[in-house]
């Protein structure tokens, strides 16, 4: 076996997926390899499908092609530096990851974050949800062949990325939330930008729905597809919209509110059909709810500081640094060696667009985390792949996989 041929040894995976295996009814089956270089496995997921005609008898997902060792990397970065790593995990929802990392560290530190920063966090986290759902809808639609929806969604996503850029200077790898607050104060004119977006977005969602929701082909492709029982989902560790599309109202924003989500008025939508179509409708509804939250955040944004009043942890003001010796020392210490975090371990979970993203952080009292474990929602959701697609048609794989909305960076880390 040559070196470039992939990380996992195919012969090994074939161990229980023998080619020309005979199944019960005497048909000969065929093994089809889907991915890692495949247009609709959304990254580098590899699926080994055992087919009987066009029906899938067995499916074995194979991951790890995007493993970057981020968890190891955390251990040699200071806490504040770690924020930039979180962007790279789930590259479609960077701010959710920033948020959970900061919340975990702040829990260890016992920091109180000013309202202003919290509301901003909520607003931008919801923007992230929109961003992620838009990309999901776009790619899901183009997988099923609706190419115009793809571009319509990217038009709005572009606007969101511009807003991100306005706040943080970065379009995708924002790293805008920092331990102790926000990286920068709000940019000038942000209200107008956000308001412009909020004003048009509701009608844009209607536009997507117009193209898809009642389209016979779309419903034919998505209704009744990708069913997996709620028991299986819970047992396999599925979280997020998939669970809600099965009727289980579970959402960390409501159950264990963080970052002042409890002050916002929004619904957690649920569906009961538990198929691809339900997940589509659910995510569209979530987009509307996020829109509602953003609107509230925009209108009721409290004033105040963008950072906590914690001199040893957040970087001091540039002005103060130039006039006060104490600030200069803090600045030097924070930049050169970081800050110490008390010993302990926490697990912080929030609701990312894909489900529960959890950060398990162990501190040994030094400036660097002793261990950070990232519980990505995609990893858990992807475990259900076999259950989801076995017994369906090969063409349903696309729809079913798409409805899971996984990001391989999140899975493989």
């Amino acid at each position, binding site marked *: 076996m040559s070196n470039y041929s992939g990380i*996992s040894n195919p012969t090994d995976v074939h161990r229980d997926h023998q080619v020309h295996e005979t199944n019960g009814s005497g048909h000969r089956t065929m093994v089809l390899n889907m991915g890692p270089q495949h247009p609709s496995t959304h990254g580098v997921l590899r699926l080994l499908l055992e087919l009987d005609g066009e029906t899938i008898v067995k499916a074995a997902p194979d991951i*790890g092609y995007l*493993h970057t060792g981020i*968890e190891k990397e955390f251990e040699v970065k200071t806490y504040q530096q770690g924020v930039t790593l979180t962007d790279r995990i789930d590259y479609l929802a960077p701010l959710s990851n920033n948020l959970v990392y900061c919340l975990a560290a702040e829990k260890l530190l016992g920091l109180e974050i000013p309202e202003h920063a919290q509301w901003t966090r909520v607003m931008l986290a919801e923007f992230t949800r929109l961003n992620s759902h838009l990309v999901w809808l776009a790619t899901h639609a183009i997988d099923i062949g609706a190419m115009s929806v793809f571009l319509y969604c990217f038009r709005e996503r572009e606007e969101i990325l511009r807003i991100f850029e306005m706040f943080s200077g970065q379009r995708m790898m924002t790293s805008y939330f920092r331990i102790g607050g926000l990286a920068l104060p709000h940019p000038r004119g942000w209200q107008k930008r956000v308001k412009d977006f909020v004003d048009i977005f509701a009608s844009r969602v209607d536009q997507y729905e117009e193209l898809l929701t009642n389209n016979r082909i779309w419903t034919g492709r998505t209704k009744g597809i990708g069913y997996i029982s709620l028991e299986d989902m819970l047992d396999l*560790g599925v979280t997020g919209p998939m669970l809600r599309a099965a009727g289980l109202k579970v959402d960390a924003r409501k159950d264990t509110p963080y970052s002042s989500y409890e002050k916002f008025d929004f619904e957690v939508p649920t569906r009961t059909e538990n198929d691809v179509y339900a997940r589509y409708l659910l995510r569209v509804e979530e987009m509307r709810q996020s829109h509602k939250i953003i609107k509230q955040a925009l209108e009721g944004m409290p004033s105040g500081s963008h950072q906590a009043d914690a001199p040893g942890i957040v970087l001091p003001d540039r002005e103060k640094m130039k006039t006060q010796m104490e600030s200069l020392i803090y600045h030097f210490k924070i930049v050169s060696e970081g800050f110490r975090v008390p010993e302990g371990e*926490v*697990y912080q979970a929030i609701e990312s667009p894909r489900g529960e993203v959890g950060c398990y952080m162990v501190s040994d009292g030094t400036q660097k985390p002793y261990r950070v*474990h990232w519980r990505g929602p995609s990893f858990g959701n992807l475990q259900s792949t076999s259950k989801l697609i076995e017994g369906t048609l090969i063409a349903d794989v696309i729809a079913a996989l798409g409805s899971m909305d996984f990001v391989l960076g999140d899975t493989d880390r």
Partner: protein
Amino acid sequence: MIPESLQGNPMVAALADLATFAKFEFNELTIETAPENIVEALRRVKQDLKFERLTSVTGVDRLPVEPRYEVVYHLQSVAGNSRLRLKTRASGTNPKVPTATLVYRSAEWYERETFDLFGINFTGHPDMRRIMMPDGWEGHPLRKDYPITGARY
């Protein structure tokens, strides 16, 4: 070694005969058991305490300490809206923990990942292979004695 303050806690009470240690910090409950009791503990947690979901399984390498590895299980109860952390320890020479896949199927990949990155063997696991690293990879990257740079590719 269960602190007084936790004696009345129903979760601790349910695992009282198995728990070797418990703590309540940062509003999070941690219960530790011996490796041979962990599956039984998980069973009770699932059946009696209604924690439907195992959110993650991972390891922590406390290098100079022996037993060296902590295996950490995070559990969530959707119905009860609560979370719980179970913990067990594995020795550095031959790290072995019984698998949780008998109780929670979601443990399958998490245990593979922990095996891959820490080298902790989950006995009874149906498919104990590497999941993240290439199959022929030497070493387990998240161990503290594994170098951060200089690994061959």
